[in-house]
């Protein structure tokens, strides 16, 4: 292998859409960079808010979550819940000074093998441009990963999760599933619980 940097990407793909799209990309022999490692989940709604942070803490340079298009969740609204969990992850990353491009949640239906390939190819290129975790952030990667682990721990804590419950409730009540709206809800409901992430590292 050449010396060029090759990013480590961990993906969580839902069984019904993105995982199937990934399979159909294979059947069609569409080629994409070999950086993605996949964890199959039945629905992106199963994505624990701590999983993306745990993935980055444990060594990933970037995390991908792939589900069904909004409104097309095989269950009913799992991908909207995933958007809430994703917004929390993005908020935590922002507080830790981690590039938000290191975490992507996107959609490909079962019939969209080529779309999946496009998404992964672009995401891999984009992550490669950022370099290893910590590089684009100008932070020490070991320390950063420790703080990401703390963030993951926080996401498993009751305080944050009660905030997420409220955010999810409001999202369904308001019916606005846009990413900025969900990000605002996370700000409103989880800011307090995430307060300790804002303190600078020693």
């Amino acid at each position, binding site marked *: 292998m050449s010396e060029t940097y090759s990013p480590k990407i961990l993906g969580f793909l839902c069984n019904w859409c993105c995982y199937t799209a990934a399979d159909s990309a294979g059947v069609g022999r569409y080629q994409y960079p070999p950086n993605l490692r996949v964890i199959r989940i039945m*629905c992106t709604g199963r994505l624990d808010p701590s999983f993306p942070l745990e993935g980055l803490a444990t060594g990933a340079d970037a995390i991908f979550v792939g589900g069904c298009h909004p409104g097309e969740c095989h269950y009913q609204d799992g991908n909207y819940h995933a958007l809430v969990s994703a917004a929390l992850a993005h908020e935590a990353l922002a507080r830790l000074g981690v590039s938000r491009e290191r975490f992507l949640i996107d959609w490909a239906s079962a019939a969209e093998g080529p779309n999946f390939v496009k998404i992964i190819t672009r995401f891999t290129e984009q992550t490669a441009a950022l370099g290893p975790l910590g590089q684009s952030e100008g932070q020490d990667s070991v320390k950063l990963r420790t703080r990401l682990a703390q963030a993951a721990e926080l996401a498993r804590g009751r305080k944050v*999760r009660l905030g997420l419950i409220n955010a999810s409730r409001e999202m369904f009540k308001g019916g606005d599933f846009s990413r900025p709206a969900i990000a605002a809800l996370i700000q409103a409901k989880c800011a307090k619980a995430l307060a300790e992430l804002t303190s600078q590292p020693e």
Partner: protein
Amino acid sequence: MNITGVVMVVGGGVAGVQAALDLTALGYKVYLVEKSAAIGGVMARLDKTFPTNDCSLCILAPKLVEAGRDPNITILTKAELIELQGRAGDFKATVRKQPRYIDEEICTGCGQCTLYCLKQINDDYNENLARTGAAHIDYAQAVPASYHIDPKACLRLNFDTCNLCSVACRAGAIRFDQKEEILQLAVGAVILAPGFGRISREVMAGYGWGRCADVLTAFEHERLMCASGPTGGEIVRPSDERHPRKIAFLQCIGSRDEKCGNNYCSSVCCMYAIKQATLAREHDPDCEITLFYMDIRTHGKGFDAARERAVGENNFRVIYARPPKVEDVFPDGGLLLTWSDESGGHHYEKFDLVVLSQGLEAPDDAEQLAQAAGIDLNPYQFAATDTYSPLATSRPGVYVIGAFQGPKDIPDSVVQAGGAAGLCAGQLASARGSATVKTVLPAEREVAGEEPRIGVFVCHCGINIGGVVKVPSVAAYAKTLPGVVYATDNLYSCSQDSQGVLVEAIRQHRLNRLVVAACTPRTHEPLFQATMREAGLNRSLFEMANIRDQCSWVHMHEPEEATEKAKDAVRMAVAKAHHHTALSEQQLPVIPGALVIGAGLAGMSAALTIADQGFAVTLVEREKQPGGRVLSLTADRHGHDPRQAVKELVARVRQHPQIKFVAQATVSAISGFVGNFTTTLTVGGEEPQSLVVNHGVMVLATGGKPHRPTGYGYGQSDRVVTQMELEARLVRAKWPPKSLKQVVMIQCVGSRGEDLAYCSRVCCGQALKNSIRLKTARPELQITIFYRDMRAYGFMEDDYRKARELGVIFLRYQPENPPRVDIGSGGKVTVNGFDPLLREEVRFNPELLVLSTGIAPEDPTELARMLKVPITADKFLLEAHVKLQPVDLPVDGTYVCGLAHAPKGMEESIAQAQAAAGRACQPLARGFITPAPIVSRIDPETCIGCGACESFCPYKAIEIYQEGKLRKARTITASCKGCGVCAARCPTLAIDMGRFTFAAIMAQIHSFGEQINE
């Protein structure tokens, strides 16, 4: 009358095997009678299948294994049906079974007999391109996985000498005293699926085959491409074993050829040539490929798109010409091809290799079989059938499926198999379950207290994985992982003998977890889980690593990286497997009724096939009356009136005690799951009312509609009509009028272009039929048809020839230069086009311009959204598997047929509807379903009773109950579908998901991290 709940299926190719499996799932015993020594048929010899280029054996092998271990399927190999007495429901079948000379019960498949066999013979499975012993097995994944001896070659049988195999066989399975057996079997119905025959050697010799070493048949080429073939998957010229640089594919060899008596089109060769060309290119990216076509007939679902992509990406040269002359004139090798193009120009060129796309013929023994089964044949020796009962032969109780019904591809064969199974089940409904036995599985071994003992099996999948990923090194790596006590690699993990290996390894190494690194869990998990269960392990102790679809196939040019990725995938799967526990499986009752949406030809056919099996059907139609679009057709290609057939169907539907017809109804909501759906209908025009239907399964037959064209003067002159509008005029009194002197037809208006991206499949046939009708009424009428490719597939080619004989003029146009239509004053029509033969512009002023406008689906978006089933970009419903589950939708218990699936003719719609009905009745016949145990579980200790899970659950599958003073949540297992939203939202992590536990996913994440730390 005595009804026997047994069906005989003659022919063990993919159609026969599928029919057998569908029949046992419906409650019938099957005798699967196969002429050769193994089931699998031609599909087992193919390397890949179009249009997806899926590995052929990979998708077939699980079915063969399933058939092999089904206690209700008796496979009779080397057997033939020789007589059929009695009548439908109560036949006596006589079968002649030739000896294998090796006891298939005792044979272990070790292969010692082949090793010691002194008599070498041509290997038929490898198209005689390799040699094997007289004692041999047809192929590695053969079912039954037993050897057999060729009596024509064996030295012991012919000369009473040798006998080495008897000595070499440690199992003592050699039986030279076996004799031919005549079996008398009582069966209620018979399905004929003998497949197709080969084009004669004389025909192929006309193109140099047999005379020039480097002229191959497509079947030979297929074996050369295949990893398990004679060259290990290298395409080499037979003459000098070098890689060919220039390959020519010649189409229509033995098809569309009056000289050899096969005037029909074989329907599959255009597409398989594209597949072979693509793969040849994959084998050697520098190879130049030329395809010689008379017409490109890629009319199946998604075929045109696959072809265009293949031709574009690989830069294939496509030449429209009759098959060229092939000569072997060069002293240094190579072949001279001479052809004339469509404008009469002559060309010649040298090629390294020529592949003959040979057509499909009726089986060699078609006449014998027809006589034995007592059925009629058509003039081409295929089974004679009727448009409106396409799977029924001339003898009641005897059905025909697959290529013997007419040349066809694998999905269409699989569809017919399902359809015939559904029809048999209807005919034998009173005997359902009377001849079958229940599978008895060993008790599950308790593994709870044991340390994980994980076995890892890494699959080569021929060269599909092994050609890219270094499989042995992945297996060696697996051995080093914690908890792994056994790891190995297999050529094909899904073959029947591999299942034996798996079971043996589980016993020998006392494995309590199984990891298979192979294709994808979406298709193969059930197979391996069944094997595990046979070995006494709970199904939930299984994990799969996807190293083909998501690894070797998508990183074909990066073997190092792909191997690393495969190792990571295996490590992560092993890490997850540590956390697997045995999960109990529930049986849920099934509501014994079906909902069929759409009462057109497909919907009504499906409803009847379900109702005939004794299940209640609610048949829903948007319009006031049943019948659908067929009512606007006024003749079929045999001159019969389809409206009459529909009228009869409507009458049967109306009278059937099991069918409730609901008119003017649309679906407003669907909830539930297989076995237990609840659908709300909005019924009635003026004052609509709600109607709630509870049903176990549903069939979507929502149909299609004629595409409304823009341009070509449509709507600007009453002289411009569509083919559908012409149908109506053709039955008017005194029509065609004397004033009509010239008719022009234009094909692919809308289809294969910007309006509809796909080929609508039926328009060429319709144009031929209508031009013949016009010409028959008024022979002096001038008819010119502008077309791109005349897609008169199958026996429709007869119509093409007939139309030409009647004087219809055919002019091919290029998509970039279509005929132009101008409407003058008084609606006068002028058509300008290019005549490729004259090489000049031609002008017509027809009194009638007929546009072939294609079929658009009724928009299924709303319904698909309610049901959560995917649709294609063209808005057709997407089936679960293009090849092997052509009528199943990806949501269990839902099925599709007719135009909602793709454009197709009436005959095909009916067969598909019968197939959807047959498949839909499987859960109904079983009476229960066993949902995957991936449901949520709530730990009452940790639960704080906040109720978030209850409020977010999309299926109301969580309820809150009081435990003393405390509120707690619990799962209603029967309603849970396992999405896991509750687990992700639980504030105290009290909820976990079966097989996707928090701990297991965390283990996968951490295991992923080890990649970095290595």
